């Protein structure tokens, strides 16, 4: 035990009976870590408004805690602290999960106070959530879906494959890279995230998505114009413009019914 930190006024180690040696902390095996990673795919199974992803986080980290804390009361206390509030983007949370395991190992060795993992989760959870929401939900998913929508006429079912492969390549690799980075570097996972320049990617993907959505609009009007009912090009064209203006101001479902009725009316009047 040469890697102990310099002696401090506090001993963070689990309190045990005086004189009784504390059990040595265990190391989670590769298989255990794989189980944790697999369980992280169920982060939101028990999502609830009070603790949000608290159950999912605790569920995922349980195998690692069981391996690290060979001493029962310490294991119990660790489980308890991971039942506290947590919320993040489900993919980027993998990085925090890895970092939390890294820190729990240090807590078990007495190098960190027991509240360190909680503090880490509070510090990284919300900003990582913002990054993930922006990149995956609001940029990558729309961009991949628009690629598929544009290629469906040519590729058919193949374009659905394109969507799933494009999206999940970045989804699954993101999860795995962040989890491993968290395990290795603890709080240093943030450097990996910083290096990824996520907001730049988000901006580029959003711009690409806007261009594709516009191309789709143009294609839809042309397609209607070349069909056997060219007047429907007018319905599609005005529909896109009017709906784009109307959407931020009205409830989507109301706009949907307006569109269905307006399309019916326009068709019966013009054709």
């Amino acid at each position, binding site marked *: 035990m040469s890697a102990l930190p310099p002696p401090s006024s506090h001993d963070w180690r689990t309190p045990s009976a005086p004189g009784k040696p504390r059990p040595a902390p265990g190391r989670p095996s590769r298989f255990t870590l794989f189980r944790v990673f697999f369980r992280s*795919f169920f982060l*939101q*199974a*028990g*999502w*609830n*408004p009070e603790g*949000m992803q*608290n*159950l*999912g986080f605790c*569920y995922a980290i*349980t195998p690692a805690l*069981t391996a690290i804390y060979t001493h029962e009361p310490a294991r*119990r206390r660790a*489980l*308890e602290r991971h*039942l506290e509030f947590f919320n993040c983007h*489900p993919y980027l949370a993998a990085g925090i999960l890895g970092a939390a395991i890294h820190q729990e190992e240090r807590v078990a060795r007495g190098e960190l106070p027991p509240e360190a993992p909680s503090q880490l989760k509070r510090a990284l959870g919300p900003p990582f959530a913002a990054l993930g929401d922006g990149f995956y*939900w*609001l940029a990558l*998913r*729309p961009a991949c*879906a628009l690629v598929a929508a544009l290629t*469906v006429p040519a590729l058919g*079912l193949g374009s659905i494959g394109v969507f*799933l492969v494009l*999206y*999940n390549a970045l*989804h699954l690799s993101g999860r795995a890279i962040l989890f491993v980075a968290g395990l290795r570097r603890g709080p240093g996972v943030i450097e990996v995230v910083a290096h990824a320049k996520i907001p730049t990617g988000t*901006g580029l993907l*959003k711009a690409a*998505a806007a*261009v*594709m*959505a*516009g*191309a*789709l609009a*143009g*294609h*839809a*009007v*042309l397609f*209607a114009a070349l069909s056997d009912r060219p007047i429907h090009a007018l*319905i599609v064209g005005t*529909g*896109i413009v009017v*709906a*784009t203006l109307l*959407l931020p101001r009205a409830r989507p479902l109301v*706009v*949907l019914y307006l*569109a*269905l009725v307006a*399309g*019916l009316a*326009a*068709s019966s009047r013009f*054709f």
Partner: protein
Amino acid sequence: MLLLPAGGLFHLALLACAAALLGGLASIERKGAFQLMLSRPLVLAPLFGLLLGDLAGGLFIGVPLELLFLGGVNLGGSVPENETLLCAALASAAIPAGLAAGTGVDESLAALGLVLLAPLALLGRWLDRQGEFHAVSLSARARVAVAMGEADPARVQLRGLLWPFLTTAAICAALVLASPLLAALRMHVHGRLEIDLGGSWHAAQALSIAAAIRAIRARRAIPLAGAAALAVFAAALIMRLHG
């Protein structure tokens, strides 16, 4: 007379079971597990098509529904409309109805289905909130399990998957069983009304593209989209002049 798919009532019951299973699994995949986007309308509708025997029909409704809900996003406690439930329900009703009516999922059938089922996206959001509210008690159970020294105390959270699975499965099964009604409705649509419902569907498609443009929350989204649309027109014009 009941309008049924080729294999009769037995066939319909079989389709109901299949739709319930697929819809239920998709509802879990949407938020509770994996999130590989298999439950997005773009993917789910063709899966329903494969399963229920009309792949083209599934593809036909998948793209517009995907675009319509492209901007729907779950930010923390802010729950969006449930596109998965609407997609599963529409596919469960329209695909068997199209098979029974002999029309397949065409424009008028899709428009009719959307008119009847669109509010399910809101019902889905309400159901999601109910499920999440009930999951609060799972937290308390996990705390008790920790105190009792159980080996895997938070495993109880997996029960949270039950609610979306069961509700979505029930709705899908019910709609497959109700699909003969939609088929009958479709049989009454012909001539003029059929063309006009086509206009309805085109307007819904236009709305879905507008929704896609609006889903991109970037400052220059609308000018970029406008420029791209004009570029497509220009390209088509050039091709026309040269071809």
